[in-house]
């Protein structure tokens, strides 16, 4: 009788463990399958799509034009413009934004497009770097990004792997006062709503973006800081390695999607 009771208890425990395991699998919907990944463009309203589709209506065009001017303006002690080394951006910058952030051998880590522009300024133009989110830096990044519109996002550089993993760790780690992770919204609950706002999959396909809420253009790092403030977590500073690792991971996660820079989002 005692033996029977012990066995019964064991079966109950095994069943309970099994149910828990199944529950965990159901709650933590894993990474979005590649076939289901889509740009936030597919989720925005008709009016916002129209704004993005027509360069004449897209306010980010104002930054693209400013970026073109800066591209051809001599700067710094070297007295050189971007165009003096890189020539026509339409040729030399085609595809660049689709593979950024890229690995920088000298820095032994990834740098994003804005950082690359500033490295070019300090190293080659001998000029002061632009401030993060300054009109000038956004304008140049948007102009460079625009040259890759419609191209597939890819980052197959093996050296980026550890940084992708570091970014993934941040993405899946719970943080902040409400103890949320990025993945809980953007992997597990995309397509549902937070109040009236649709939760997108969170692919950075069109940065820098013109965000209607910002009434302005902004970088991916600004967007990441925005999300972290929303999670009531301490946002990482502009240019912090954590932010860049997140950018690398998110671009890897969005691989295969088409770049839309400059996109318009609500």
């Amino acid at each position, binding site marked *: 009788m005692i033996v029977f009771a012990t066995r019964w208890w064991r079966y109950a425990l095994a069943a309970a463990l099994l149910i828990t395991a199944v529950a965990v699998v159901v709650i933590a919907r894993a990474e979005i399958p590649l076939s289901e990944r889509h740009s936030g463009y597919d989720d925005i309203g008709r009016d916002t799509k129209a704004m993005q589709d027509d360069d*004449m*209506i897209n*306010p980010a*065009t*104002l930054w693209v*034009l*400013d970026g073109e*001017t800066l591209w051809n303006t001599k700067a710094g002690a070297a007295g050189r413009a971007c165009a003096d080394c890189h020539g026509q951006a339409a040729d030399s910058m085609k595809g660049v934004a689709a593979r950024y952030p890229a690995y920088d051998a000298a820095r032994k880590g990834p740098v994003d497009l804005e950082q690359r522009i500033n490295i070019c300024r300090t190293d080659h133009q001998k000029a002061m770097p632009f401030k993060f989110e300054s*009109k000038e830096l956004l*304008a140049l990044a948007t102009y460079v990004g625009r040259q890759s519109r419609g191209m597939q996002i890819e980052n197959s550089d093996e050296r980026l792997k550890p940084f992708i993993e570091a970014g993934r760790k941040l993405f899946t780690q719970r943080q902040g006062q409400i103890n949320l992770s990025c993945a809980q919204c953007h992997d597990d609950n995309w397509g549902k709503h937070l109040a009236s706002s649709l939760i997108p999959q969170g692919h950075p396909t069109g940065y820098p973006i013109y965000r*209607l809420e910002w*009434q*302005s253009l902004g970088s991916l790092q600004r967007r990441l800081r925005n999300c972290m403030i929303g999670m009531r977590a301490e946002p990482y500073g502009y240019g912090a390695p954590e932010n860049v690792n997140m950018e690398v991971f998110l671009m890897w996660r969005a691989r295969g999607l088409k770049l839309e820079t400059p996109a318009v989002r609500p």
Partner: protein
Amino acid sequence: MARALINVPKAAKRGQVIEIKTLISHIMETGFRHDDVGQPIPRDIITDFVCTYNGEQIFRADLYPAVAANPFITFFTVATESGTIAFEWNGDNGFHETESVQIMVE
């Protein structure tokens, strides 16, 4: 780096209805916001927009603080004759911007 974008067809048939699209770079600061230390941010908006066709006013708009940054104004007119379509924006702090485009009407 104030800048405006104008989109008007280069050529049109006489009597044809044409669409005019304008987009201008401006922060449109409402005057109702406060900065990090609680000081009010002064209003800085475009207050009026005028479009003339060969000197004749064909469209006019008064703008208010509720208008979004980088105002996009679009409207229609009838192509009557070849000439110049001119645009003028005026606003706070002496903001003044002009643009003009040529149109061929046949």
